[in-house]
């Protein structure tokens, strides 16, 4: 009797242990181990080295004492804030334009925004160099119109940096705001109109306040990304436009600056994470991955904050609202609807042009007959395509990139899919924190990540290895995969899985027969994004590759800095074709996970 009890007890314990093992939480382990080794460990190391001076603060004191770095830091913050503002100014009308247009027009406008989003920053910056160059179309057009007598130097100044960075980051802002606008109940606008509010009053009182989360998320993502920007300001800026990340790469060339170099990186990292942390307090950290709240194991009570705050502000606020706010609102509300419509159309149209024209110009130039960059081309030929495909160095770089991107994508999809399953299907506390860790690599400035990885790669002799680069690229690929797969998984009804289980399917079989088919399009899209991320990656590769292992972006980077020749246009055109093909395949999924990073 007692034997039997003991036996059944043991059985129960064994069962509960194997049940424990079967919990989806364990799916997080591979990704966690991978990121701990190749992402968190180097970052901790980076901080440790930065503190290793005679006193812990030595290196940091130098960062803040030398005006070169301090000025650059202030300049970086100013430029980033300006870019974020410009992106908002032009991005909001563009998001509205997408929302308000219908059918094929909507698809075209949305494509014009999404397509550049997937094209390498290097290539889009190169396109602006072509556009703004001495022989570029803008100078040519200005002379033809008689505005200029001779080509002006449009490049290498603050204006070109702001223009280039805004153009590069605009899609992020538009997608963020669009996801907010498209979720609004359309009858809210009608209700406001029926309440006597004019079209612009509706915008100000209803549309704008309700899309504030999207605006906040967009501004923050753009600002934080701009803080760590390296490629665009290097190529489009002059000596007076040095951004902070550029100092880190310059210092990296001197072996003597060990410690100080890390301190520079830690400063940039701290500012970035600080901004994200403060923003996350207000917006919820979901803004980083642009998704909705995750279902936590223990639901936190919804807070009703802001009540007493609004009561306090009422006395001062009411006076201004009565005296200025409401009358002004009513006045503005009298403007006809066509005023707003045309503002949206003109600004949105301008954005679409600004995003598409550089790409189109570069595609045209790739077929140029001329041996230097000029637009319009004097004639057309395929000579630059021949040069690209017959040059062993270009081809070697291309195949290196292809191999690395395929490996990296496979790694990111395997680890990322498992982790997404763990996050969405698992029941545990602190989901937001786990998700935050998984997607945080997109926040860390690539320069900082590259620098930290460099010491790790040196220690384990991974510099210049194909698999080393693939693993490094997978750090940034995992967040993309997790976000896309988590979104598709949330679209799968868990009751379908329960139904399959009730009818006798084992967990693995449930995954194979129910879950996987449902998320397959998401997996395909995620694989494509991770592939593109690696294929386009430049900054990490700058730190981690060797002379023997050149990737395509590295070759491009070398050429952009020395000679602007049309072979670059050929590479750009091929990349655009790759992206267009990928988007065409991934379109159904893209529509669902829009607003993801």
């Amino acid at each position, binding site marked *: 009797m007692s034997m039997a009890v003991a036996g059944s007890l043991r059985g129960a314990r064994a069962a509960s242990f194997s049940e424990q093992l079967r919990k989806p939480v364990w799916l997080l382990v591979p990704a966690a181990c991978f990121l701990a080794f190749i992402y968190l460990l180097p970052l901790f190391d980076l901080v440790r080295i930065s503190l290793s001076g005679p006193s812990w603060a030595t290196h940091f004191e130098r960062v803040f004492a030398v005006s070169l770095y301090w000025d650059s830091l202030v300049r970086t913050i100013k430029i980033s804030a300006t870019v974020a503002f410009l992106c908002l100014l032009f991005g909001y009308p563009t998001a509205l334009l997408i929302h308000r247009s219908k059918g094929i027009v909507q698809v075209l406008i949305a494509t014009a925004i999404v397509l550049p989003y997937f094209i390498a920053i290097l290539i889009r910056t190169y396109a602006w160099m072509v556009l703004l160059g001495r022989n570029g179309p803008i100078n040519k057009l200005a002379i033809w119109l008689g505005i200029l007598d001779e080509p002006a130097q449009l490049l290498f100044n603050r204006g070109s940096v702001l223009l280039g960075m805004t153009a590069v980051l605009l899609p992020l802002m538009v997608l963020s705001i669009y996801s907010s606008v498209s979720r609004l109940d359309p*009858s809210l606008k*009608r209700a406001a109109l*029926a309440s006597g509010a*004019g079209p612009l009053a509706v915008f100000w009182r209803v549309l704008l306040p309700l899309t504030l989360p999207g605006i906040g998320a967009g501004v923050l993502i753009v600002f934080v990304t701009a803080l760590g920007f390296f490629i665009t300001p290097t190529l489009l800026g002059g000596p007076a436009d040095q951004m902070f990340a550029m100092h880190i790469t310059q210092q990296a060339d001197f072996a003597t600056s060990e410690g100080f170099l890390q301190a520079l990186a830690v400063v940039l990292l701290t500012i970035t994470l600080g901004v994200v942390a403060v923003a996350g307090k207000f917006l919820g950290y979901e803004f980083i991955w642009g998704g909705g709240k995750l279902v936590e194991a223990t639901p936190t009570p919804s807070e009703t904050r802001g009540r007493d705050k609004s009561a306090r502000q009422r006395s001062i606020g009411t006076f201004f609202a009565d005296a200025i706010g409401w009358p002004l609102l009513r006045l503005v*509300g009298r403007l006809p609807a066509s005023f707003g419509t045309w503002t949206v159309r003109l600004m949105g149209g301008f954005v679409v042009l600004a995003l598409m024209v550089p790409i189109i110009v570069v595609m045209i130039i790739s077929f140029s007959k001329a041996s230097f960059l000029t637009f319009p081309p004097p004639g057309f030929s395929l000579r630059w395509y021949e040069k690209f495909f017959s040059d062993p160095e270009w081809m070697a770089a291309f195949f290196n990139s292809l191999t690395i991107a395929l490996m990296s994508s496979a790694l990111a999809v395997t680890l990322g899919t498992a982790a997404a399953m763990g996050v969405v299907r698992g029941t545990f506390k602190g989901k937001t924190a786990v998700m935050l860790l998984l997607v945080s690599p997109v926040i860390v400035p690539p320069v900082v990540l590259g620098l930290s990885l460099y010491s790790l790669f040196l220690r384990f002799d991974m510099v210049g290895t194909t698999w080393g680069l693939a693993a490094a690229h997978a750090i940034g690929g995992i967040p993309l995969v997790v976000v896309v797969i988590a979104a598709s998984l949330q679209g799968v009804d868990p009751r379908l899985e329960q139904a399959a289980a009730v009818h006798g399917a084992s967990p693995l079989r449930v995954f194979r027969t129910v879950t996987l088919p449902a998320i397959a399009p998401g997996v395909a899209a995620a694989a494509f994004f991770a592939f593109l991320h690696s294929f386009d990656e430049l900054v990490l590769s700058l730190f981690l590759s060797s002379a023997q292992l050149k990737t395509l972006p590295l070759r491009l980077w070398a050429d952009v800095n020395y000679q602007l020749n049309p072979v670059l246009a050929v590479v750009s055109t091929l990349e655009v074709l790759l992206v267009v093909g990928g988007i065409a395949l991934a379109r159904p999924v893209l529509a669902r996970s829009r607003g993801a990073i």
Partner: protein
Amino acid sequence: MTDGLAGRAERRQHIAEQAGNSSGRVFQAIGSSIEVANVTKRYGPFCAADDISLTIQPGEFITLLGPSGSGKTTLLNLIAGFQKLDSGEILVDGKPIHHVPTHRRGFGMVFQSYALFPNMTVSQNVGFPLRMAGMDRETTERRVAETLEIMRLSEHALKTPSQMSGGQQQRVAIARAIVMRPKVVLMDEPLSALDRRLRESIQIEIRELHQTIGSTILFVTHDQGEALTMSDRIAVLDAGKIVQVATPVELYRHPETRFVASFVGESNLIEAEIVQKRGSTMTLKNKAGYVFNAESRNAIDVGRATVLVRPERIAISNEPASNTTQATVTSAIFLGEILRIEAKMESGETLLIRCSDIAGRAMPSPGDTIHVSWGAEDCWVLA
């Protein structure tokens, strides 16, 4: 029927006078008349509103009833100004309004999805139309308080919409729609997101509100029961056209088409041959030879006709009597206060019968033979 309408208008006039005499706090507006004249709206080849004409009396509660896609919401949106009409005219108090943008039409509107501004409190929501109309803070606050009191929402004034239940949210939406004392209130399926009990209580609330405020109310629904409960008159729409406009009683008793007969209430449509016509009464004979009388307003007096018999107007008995016909029970369901019986007549037609449950009478069971009959006043010959 027209008497009833005039009676209501008179009563409303009376209320208005009383209100004018007693105190300024009573909510009162004199509703507008709305004239929809030959209105057409197309979406590509699809005609959502096909040459619709409708005259709405001042202060009337009129319901647009129809299945989804019948054009009722299109017509409401055209009147609200959310969509532009292709041809025709809409006149409010005799003035054309289709060039006036929505926000200057001065209507109140209630939406199916409530459409409360989530970034504002209840009192800010209700006060929004007042502020947009340029009223000062004191007037706004007073009028908001009055309106919330009428809707019994006073204690919720500082809540945000997300903190309230669906029924409360819809009452806030109604408060926002009436706070300006508009001459016209448009309601677009305002109750269809609510559960049945709540729906019934708010139906009564809206009816009483209409008596109080006197605005013209244009109410859209696909629920025929709701339309019958609430309306002064009902306009039934089908495929972009108005099929019949009538009071609830008239619509139920004397539908003009098969569509109206089957869409409004449950119905039995019996094919029969006209034997004789005498005044407003016809004598008909169905396929199995059963001869019965029916009311009719039709001009035709020979040939075939479709006769509407409402299920609750059919008398049943277990024994044959004079002027009954035989039917075989196919199903009998006990619904509490009534029995719902389906029976096959000798003519092959299925007859739906609703009769009250009488103590002591045995439940019919499938296969039983029953004897059914109806009087002349219980059936109506369709055109």
